[in-house]
């Protein structure tokens, strides 16, 4: 399978935000402008996450999705406060290819099954957010709350629950451009047969290669693509030169 490079757009419902370690959000632009920019660059796929939806007791904004689907002719996945089948349905109807479940999947794993039954396994990404490199502390509510689950047991069960992909996030490394938690990527990739999207801390093209060598099927990055010279295209070229296949644009 070809490796996917997935720019992440974080939003607070209105604007694009940039945070560090799932906190200290600051506005860095509009979500639409970001979508337009990535669309013009013919990226593989986009990940749109509303990082404050749950705390605002709402879900990702429908109008934002409509704008995204008007601009994008590549797939996008959305997350942020999706906690019922109806929420997921709204996302799919407005152009999303997949939904990302985080807190809601951990608190209510049956939701994964429920959505997968109607929309298929491939439509459900489950996000597992690890607090720190050296502990198995998985967090919910945007990293703010500990949860009493055995993370490895949970990841092993995801396929049978109906998930299609695992989004592996490192809270410690989020937005820091300090390289990725390769040990965790390797561990999680052996725990599940599902494609693993590695996220958090990507700081260079080499990080993408190393994530892939450790088992990731896709690598996502936000800050790197927004604030540095590194582009998804540069990452693809670097991977290709190392014998890793990525998308061939038409």
């Amino acid at each position, binding site marked *: 399978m070809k490796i*996917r490079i997935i720019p992440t757009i974080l939003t607070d419902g209105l604007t694009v935000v940039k945070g560090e370690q799932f906190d200290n959000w600051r506005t860095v632009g509009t979500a639409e402008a970001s979508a337009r920019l990535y669309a013009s660059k013919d990226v593989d796929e986009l990940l749109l996450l509303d990082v404050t939806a749950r705390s605002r007791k709402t879900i990702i904004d429908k109008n934002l999705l409509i704008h995204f689907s008007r601009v994008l002719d*590549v*797939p996008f996945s959305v997350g942020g406060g999706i906690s019922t089948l109806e929420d997921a*349905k709204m996302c799919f109807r407005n152009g999303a290819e997949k939904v990302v479940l985080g807190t809601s999947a951990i608190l209510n794993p049956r939701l994964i099954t429920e959505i997968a039954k109607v*929309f*298929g396994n491939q439509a459900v990404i489950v996000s597992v957010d690890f607090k720190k490199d050296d502990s198995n502390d998985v967090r919910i509510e945007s990293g703010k709350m500990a949860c009493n689950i055995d993370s490895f047991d949970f990841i092993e069960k995801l396929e049978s629950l109906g998930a299609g992909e695992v989004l592996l996030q490192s809270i410690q490394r989020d937005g820091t451009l300090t390289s990725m938690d390769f040990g965790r990527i390797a561990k999680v990739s052996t725990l599940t047969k599902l494609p693993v999207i590695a996220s958090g801390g990507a700081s260079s093209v080499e990080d993408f290669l190393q994530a892939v060598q450790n088992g990731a099927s896709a690598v996502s990055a936000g800050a790197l693509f927004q604030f540095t010279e590194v582009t998804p295209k540069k990452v693809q070229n670097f991977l290709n030169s190392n014998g890793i296949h990525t998308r061939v644009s038409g």
Partner: protein
Amino acid sequence: MLVSIIDLGINNLTSVQRAFSLPLKTNDKLTVIESDLKLNRPDLLILPGLGSFGAGMTALKERNLVDRIKIWSSQGTKVVGICLGMQLLASQSQESIGVDGLSLIDSSIERLKNYQKERVPHTGWAEANCQIASPPFPSLHSPGDFYFVHSYHLIPSSAEYTLTKTPFGSTTFVSSVLQKNILGVQFHPEKSGSKGKTLISEIIQWVRDED
């Protein structure tokens, strides 16, 4: 030309609608079909997809569209099934045993097997290699990947319906089929960037050519 898109209530309607409206001319019309009421036979019928085989067939039955689609296709309407929509063109699927498909393409649906290094669902970009010399869609002979998201694939009863094949591990699967006026694509042209855009305009041209 009349283009109609079936709304199953579970599909990614917005993207498909947008993608197929782009190559249309001013006199062309694009409609969304939600039930079997007050319908004109379209020149092109799009059956988009997302979801499971069983849920898709249930949605078609609830809308009384199963026979309608069969009648239209026998009258010459060109039918394009996308992703799950392609799979619904088959007779049956391992995903929902006991559920009858539309049987518009003599085929069945099986689950992709986990091959070494290949993970299911098959998610992402892959090539679709054209198996026939002069397809109605010339761009299929040019390089460029399409976007796939699926766990099942179609097995045609006869190799002559195979339009493209896509590598998967050490093997391949049939990624599009063409049987007279029925086209099925496993990938999502509406999500495949400029490559998909070109194919969609060629599909519209394919319909226009025979009007």
